[in-house]
Each structure stands twice: as structure tokens, then as C-alpha cells.
């Protein structure tokens, strides 16, 4: 073959354009997936949030499609392992599927965390997850004259977008977050329950347990967990391992003193739990070993407490639980600690015993404004009722 300028250029164009017809033109000619069961159009705020997501290159680290093997990505368990479908992207201009996974897949992220978790996380991801390598987006805040920070609309829209990831499923999870948060708001803030305020980090502990709201809080933890006995004996090894795990995972919110005043504190509502009250750690409501175990394993929906079940083993979690009982006696702050001498044995207070005799109701009568989310098609097979999952 004689390769001249003309024949080479024309030949090159013919070869490539014939293939382009097959791999570029054909797909748009023949492949028009309909919107899937979860796809929905964006609101204006979500659309703008999506642009903020694009502008900051979130898609360089976070993919947005679930493969069959991706059952450990956020939200996937809630959707019963739903795999991405072509119609999920029907309303998206510019499909940001993502090619890299330096962070988790986000296609089912909506409602996995409440808004306050996102605020803290975007300000600095290390606040809620000390191991995270995500960049901080503190530049999406404005700093006020008193040094406090206010999120910009860019950020709020970004959160609106993130809470919608997963489309209708995301909306459903998000609604559940909101209603659970409402439950806590009622239980903690409605008088007269300053002690609960103290438990949830409201700084000025007061007098008595208020009992209707107690029930609401108890209902968050299923009974079978609540009276679970600690299978891992508290010994030096367990306490030391527990401390290591606490320091590498928990201090962002619960603070280096364990008093719930970590750097994320300013963004959270309800506040992170305070572990420094000896009486509460010995007899408190939320501090039974089983209750602590459940909170760490599954997280507490409606609050920034996230599940650690993926990253910690059963033994890891019990080690942390054991360790938590040393915090009032300096197990965390004492550099040589924790020691067995600092360990507090939990036993229910008399009031609590009484309270537990009352059959559990969920949600509590004191929180009638709480809308219980209806069971979704995706969760119907879920053996653990929603309220109980926490």
C-alpha cells in the first residue's frame, strides 16, 4: 500500500470513524434506559449541591455505582444489596460514576448519616473519623467575628445532594434520620430531664431522671442487647486494647478526655456522649455493657454516632466497652492507664430497675410528634425492626 498524505489521512479517518459509529453512536441510538425505581429529579438545591460535588472533585475518590460484590459499602445493607442499574442515572447530566475508590462508594449514601455528622465531617473528616484521608472542606464555611463558623449555601446544598444519594431510597433513609433525631430532641430537651441532658453532653448536669422520655431512649436499644452480659473479661490486655481503639476511632467526637467535647462537638446535636460521670457509668441508663456494645456495633440513628461493626471485631468492641468504664477514674487521661483499679462494675440503679419493669414502648408516649417511618419494600425482609436498629 502506498502511504501518501491523502491516503493516510483519509484511511485513518475511515477506520476510526467506522469504529466510532459502533462504540459511540450506537449506544446513544439504541440504549435509552428508563428511570429506575429509585431515580428522581433533583431539587434546585440538590442540583447545585451536585455541582459543588463536581467542583471539588469528590468523584475522583468516590464512585457512584454498586457492584454485586460491594455489599459492605454505606447504605447497601439497607437496600438489601441493590446493584446499580442504568436507569439510576436517568436524571443526571454528566454521569459521575467515578473510577477510583479512595473513599467509600456514595451511591447509597443518602440518610446513612444525619446532617450534623455531615457538617462535622465536611469541616474536617478527622473530626468524626480519625483514620479518614478525605480533605477538609473548611473553606466551605465562613468564619464569624467571634471565631465560630457558619456553613455557606454551597455546603448546605452539598449536604442536600448527599442526603439524596440513592434517590428515593436515600430520601427514605434520610426521613428516618430526621424522625430519630426528633425523638432524641424530644427526649433530651423536653423538661424535666436534665440528667439525660448531661448524658448527652449538655454541659450542666441537673437532678432527676424524667421517666417517659427514658422509655424512648431505652427503646433505642433492643432488650436482648440491653441486658447482654460482657463475654470478654475486663483485664489489663482488654483495657489497653480498648484504649488504643478508643483513641484511634472515637476521640474526634467524644474528646481526648472522653467528656464528649471532641473537636466535632461544636457541630453535633445531640452532643457526643460524656463518659466521665462515675455515677452514670456505674448505674446509668445507656451504660449497660450490652447497650454500649449495641451503640458501637450499629451506631445510633438520628445522632452522629456511626456504626463501627465493619471495622471492629466483636472482641474489639467489648474491649472498648470495658475500657469505657475506666474513663471516670482517669483511664483515658492517665498516661500510664488504664488499670484494673480504675474499672467500674456496672449495675442498674434502683430507679432503672423500676423503669425496666414497665413494658417498653416505642416510640415513647412523650414523643407523640415523632413520625414513625413506614416500612419500605426494601426493609420488609429486615428481621430487626427499624426503631430497634438504632
Amino acid at each position, binding site marked *: 500500500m502506498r502511504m501518501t498524505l491523502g491516503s493516510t489521512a483519509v484511511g485513518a479517518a475511515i477506520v476510526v470513524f467506522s469504529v466510532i459509529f459502533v*462504540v459511540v453512536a450506537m449506544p446513544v441510538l439504541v440504549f435509552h434506559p428508563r428511570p429506575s425505581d429509585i431515580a428522581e429529579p433533583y431539587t434546585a438545591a440538590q442540583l447545585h449541591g451536585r455541582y459543588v460535588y463536581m467542583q471539588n472533585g469528590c468523584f475522583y475518590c468516590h464512585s457512584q455505582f454498586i457492584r454485586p460484590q460491594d455489599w459492605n459499602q454505606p447504605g447497601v445493607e439497607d437496600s438489601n444489596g441493590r446493584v446499580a442499574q442504568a436507569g439510576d442515572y436517568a436524571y443526571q447530566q*454528566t454521569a459521575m460514576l467515578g473510577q477510583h475508590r479512595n473513599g467509600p462508594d456514595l451511591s447509597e449514601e443518602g440518610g446513612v448519616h444525619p446532617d450534623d455528622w455531615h457538617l462535622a465531617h465536611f469541616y474536617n473528616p478527622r473530626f468524626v473519623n480519625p483514620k479518614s484521608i478525605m480533605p477538609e472542606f473548611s473553606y466551605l464555611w465562613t468564619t464569624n467575628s467571634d471565631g465560630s463558623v457558619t456553613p455557606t449555601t454551597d455546603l448546605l446544598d452539598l449536604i442536600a445532594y448527599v442526603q439524596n444519594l440513592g434517590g428515593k431510597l436515600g430520601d427514605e433513609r434520610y426521613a428516618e434520620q430526621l424522625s430519630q433525631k426528633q425523638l432524641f430532641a424530644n427526649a433530651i430537651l423536653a423538661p424535666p430531664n436534665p440528667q439525660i441532658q448531661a448524658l448527652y453532653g449538655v454541659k450542666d448536669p441537673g437532678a432527676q431522671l424524667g421517666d417517659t422520655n427514658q422509655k424512648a431512649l431505652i427503646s433505642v436499644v433492643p432488650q436482648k442487647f440491653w441486658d447482654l452480659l460482657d463475654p470478654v473479661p475486663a483485664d489489663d490486655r482488654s483495657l489497653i486494647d480498648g484504649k488504643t481503639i478508643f483513641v484511634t476511632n472515637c476521640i474526634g467526637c467524644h474528646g481526648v478526655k472522653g467528656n464528649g467535647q471532641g473537636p466535632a462537638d461544636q457541630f453535633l446535636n445531640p452532643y457526643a456522649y460524656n463518659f466521665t460521670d462515675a455515677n452514670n457509668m456505674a448505674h446509668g441508663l445507656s451504660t449497660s455493657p450490652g447497650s454500649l456494645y449495641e451503640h458501637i456495633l450499629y451506631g445510633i440513628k438520628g445522632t452522629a454516632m456511626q456504626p463501627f461493626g465493619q471495622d471492629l471485631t466483636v472482641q474489639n468492641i467489648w474491649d472498648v466497652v470495658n475500657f469505657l468504664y475506666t474513663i471516670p477514674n482517669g483511664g483515658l487521661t492517665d498516661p500510664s492507664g488504664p488499670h484494673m483499679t480504675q474499672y467500674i462494675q456496672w449495675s442498674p440503679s434502683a430507679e432503672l430497675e423500676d423503669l425496666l419493669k414497665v413494658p417498653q414502648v416505642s416510640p415513647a408516649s412523650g414523643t407523640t410528634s415523632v413520625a414513625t417511618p413506614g416500612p419500605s419494600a426494601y426493609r420488609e425482609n429486615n428481621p430487626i425492626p427499624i426503631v430497634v436498629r438504632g
Partner: protein
Amino acid sequence: MASPTGSIALPQATGLRARGQSLWDAWSVPHSAARNFIYSATFWVALTDTMGLVTSTEFVDPDLFGGIPWMEFGRMRSMHVNGVAFLWLSMGYAGAFFYIISKLSGRPLYSERLGNITMLLWNIWGVALILTLGAGLTQGREYAEAIWPLDIMFLVILGLIAFNIFMTLASRVEPRLYVSAWYIIGAMVWFPNVYAIGNVVWNPPYGSLQGINDATWNWFYGHNILGLWFTTGGVAIAYYMIPAITRTPVYSHLLSMVGFWTLGLFYTMVGQHHLLQTPTPGWLKTVATLGSISLFVPVLTFITNIFMTMRGNWQKIYESVPLKFVVTGVIFYLITCIQGPFQATQGFNRLIHFTQWIIGHAHLALLGAFTFILMGACYYIIPVTLGRRIYSIKLAEAQFWLMTLGFLGFFISLQIAGLIQGACWMTTNHSVYWCLTAIRPYLIARSVSGALMVSGGWIQIYNLYKTATAGQYISSVSGPAAADAGGL
């Protein structure tokens, strides 16, 4: 092939502008456009490699540059990737193409001035690109981030370059087109089209489609800037440099021919191998996997041709730094293209997709293969067209070894990291964070070896600058001197 002629003897070819010479005159000096493109590219490689280094540190210490918008990972990364791809490699290619085409035609470039104006435009485009990406103005599609006005400007630039090259070829005195010229013609026909289609330039301001087909288009484009531009151009340069420096004709015309046509055919098919696990049509994935495996044909014909040309010439890599760079690049290209088809099979892709392995592969191709080939070309073209020797062979050698060792460290640590990540996701219930802590040591190793490579880029700036201003003149312009200038 045309012999090295006239240009070297020109007195004003000092490299930078001669005293008292106006810019307009300086821009008409033969090969000045090629040189200016290469100088610009050299500047950009040092700068944008440094951005890559910054990006890599954010894996190790994410708070190091925390809170500075344009240094945030997502933005810095796009500056790095676009910078190395469109400012370093592409500008360097344009310079090398100008030189090679004028050599192969036996004629000066059709218009040096136009070439230089294009060079200026491209640099302006580059500054605008980096600034817009830093400010968060993007179309959000990998390799197609540039916003719409910049897309259009880039197409104009490419058009001007193609025009200059085709006009030079049309005026050639050598009737037969050498294989490098085919590849350059191919690249100049393909790239602007791929760019326009892939960027959906008729749909401003998004530059994208609606729905999942957008991903297909994005990766048709993402793959074909690699296949129909970086590969095509790099192969063209290697096909020129190796015979020119070793003074050996290319081994087989037939192999070149097979390689060229199958490259155009098979590369175009494979975009979907980036989306093997997405909910896109299955037949596209099949086409892509078959095409990827078929790519062994253009790759092996090229490699055979080059290695057979090198037969009996291997000792010359000790004498010529450019040759050393180019041959190393060709070897890395071979490794890339052995990796590639495996990655494009469903089974293996399931293990390594999303992981740092892919980043390793991407750097093996664009850094190991084509950056090395282009650096060889820079160290050849600047001295030869100026009639000066490389200012410091020692520094050039140092650059070679910093780049090679740095790259190997970079590459190997990312491959290990990728396998760990893939296995971690597949076989454990751990979250992505937990798996990241497992690869942290390898990410640190990546940054350290990346720093070696970055220093290589800065050495090139210094060495080429000194070559242009203080390199020893080559007294004789005949025969081997040209190769000499690049070598000793």
C-alpha cells in the same frame, strides 16, 4: 530519510533570542517553534509533576495543605492530570512533531511564526486551564475537565497545529512518507475529532450527555486521548528517534504498516474497558475486551520493529542519553501493554478496578512510557537544532536515573498497594478506611519516589536552559554529529 541539513549552521540559532533580535524575527528561525514548544513543555512538566507530588502527600497527611481551596485533593489532582497530559506531553509532542515532520519532509516547517503563535496560545490556554481548575471551574469528567470556552480554544489550537503539519507535508521533497509521518498524520486527524466528540462540545456549558451513556462517551474519550494521541504520538517519536540516533533503518515496513492500521482499529474499540463493571450495555464491554486483547497486534509489531532495529545497537544506549530515555520508554510501553489486556478482562478487573493499581498502570503508560520517550526527544531535538552539545551529560544521566529509580519505586509500591486494596475489599467486611490504613506504607513510598522524579523534571529545565545558552557548539554538522549532539 532526509539528512540533517542547513538549520544547524544558522548563526542565530542560539536557542533563546539573540541580542537585538526582535521576537518576531526570532520566531521565524527554523525549528524555533519546535524548541519553544519543548521549552514550554519542560516548564510544565516540572510544575505539574510537583502538583502530583503535592497530591500524593494528601494521601499520607491530608491536613498538610488542608483548608486551601485550590490545593484540595480533587482540584490539585485535576490540575496535575490535565497539566501532565495537555501541557507537558501534548505540548512536547507538538514540538517533536514539528521537528520530525520538517526533517521527514526535507523542508522547513510551513510557518515557524504560526507555530510560535500557536505555542503562545497553547501556553495561555494552559495558564487558563490551571487557574480555572484551581478555582473549581470544571465539567466534572475525567480528562475532559476543561470548561467549554477552553475546549473550543483548544480545538482551534489543535487545528492550527494540524494545518501547519499538513502544509509542511504537502510541500515535502521526500516522496515517500516515513512511518513516523503516518502516525503523526493519524494523531492529527484523530485527536481533534476525539476531543470534540468526547467533550460533547455542541452541548455547552455541560459538555456532557444526560444519563449513563455519558459515561460511555467520557471513557471513549478518556481512552482515545491515550490510544489515538499519546500512544500514536509516542510511537511516532520512538520510530523517528531510534533509527535517527542509531543510524539504522527501521527493520520492517510491513510490520509498521500492520501496526499503524490495527492501532487505529483496535484502540478505538476499547473505551468501555474502563467501565466493565458499570450498568452499561454488555455488548460494548465485549467489544472492549476483545479489542483490548487484540491490541497485542499493534503493540507487538511496534515492539518487534523497534527491538529488531536496536539489534546490534544496544551498546549505543551507553553513548546517548536520548536513546537511553527512548528505549527505556519503549520497554515501559511493552509492560503497560502486557498489563492492559489483563486488566481488561472481567475477572482481573474485578480485583483491581478502583484501586491504586490503576494509578500505577496510568503512570506506567504516561510517565514510564511516554514521558521517557518525550524526554529523550527533548534531549535530542534541542541540542541538534541548536548545534550545541547537551550542557551537562552528567546531569542528564542523573535525571535519567532519578526518573527511572523513582518511577520504579512509585510503580511497584502502587501495584502492591492496589493488590492489597483489591483483596481487602473482596475478602473482608472492612470499610474503605480500614483498607487504606493497610496501604499507607506504600503510599508513603510512592510520595518519596515521586519526589525523585519531580527533581528529574527540574533538572531538565536547568539542563536545557544551559544547553541553549551555554552548550558547546558542535563544529562539524555532517553525519554522526547530529546523533553526537544528542549523545556525547
